[in-house]
């Protein structure tokens, strides 16, 4: 088992009602697997939202295997400025 810290921002926070969620997952889970879990948990509220992925505060472009202790964020469209 691995422990993953999910950080929630903007629409993800709004959809899940949490700032942060800790997941206990099987070994061999990838970022896209976790995104599916998160979208399911949001019960449709994220269906139209494009999410980028960050692992340990760095954008990643490829489906990446998660390691114990990773911090993940699914990043909705950003709005700085």
């Amino acid at each position, binding site marked *: 088992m691995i422990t993953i810290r999910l*950080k929630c*921002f*903007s*629409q993800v926070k*709004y959809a899940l009602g949490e700032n942060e969620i800790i997941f206990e997952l099987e070994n061999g889970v990838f970022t896209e697997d976790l995104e599916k879990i998160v979208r399911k948990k949001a019960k449709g509220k994220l269906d139209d939202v494009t999410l980028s992925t*960050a692992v340990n*505060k*760095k*954008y990643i472009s490829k489906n990446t295997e998660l390691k114990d202790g990773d911090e993940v*964020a699914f*990043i*909705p*469209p*950003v*709005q*700085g*400025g």
Partner: protein
Amino acid sequence: MIKVEIVGSSITPFDSNDNQKEKGAELIFNGRVRGTEHGKKIRMLEYEQYEDMAEKELRMIAQETQNKFPIKDLLCRHRIGGVKVGETSLHVSVWSKHRKEGLEAMSFFIIELKKRVPIWKWAILENGEKIPSECKHE
């Protein structure tokens, strides 16, 4: 020189000065909060950041901008937390030898910031309700 900061209170503008001998262009951009969002009046915007990652990404974009355009300095302050209508949320100052590269650098920097820096806006409506801002940057 590059300087980027994320601040939690009113933005103090970077110093302007008359002692620069080789920098012929000083460009300043202030992004301010508008009073309406999609036709609804708002009290303020509340900016949320992904702590550490937002400043790191901002610094990376500033560095890329300086590598791409022959500018001398790029200085940026981005505010987070509550920002009232009319107040500055983003302050950028670019110094360059000539205006052309300064204007191009300013435009590139702000476009990339709006694409990549993990900062979001929540709109605080007049009735106090807080909702994710629908503001999108194309």
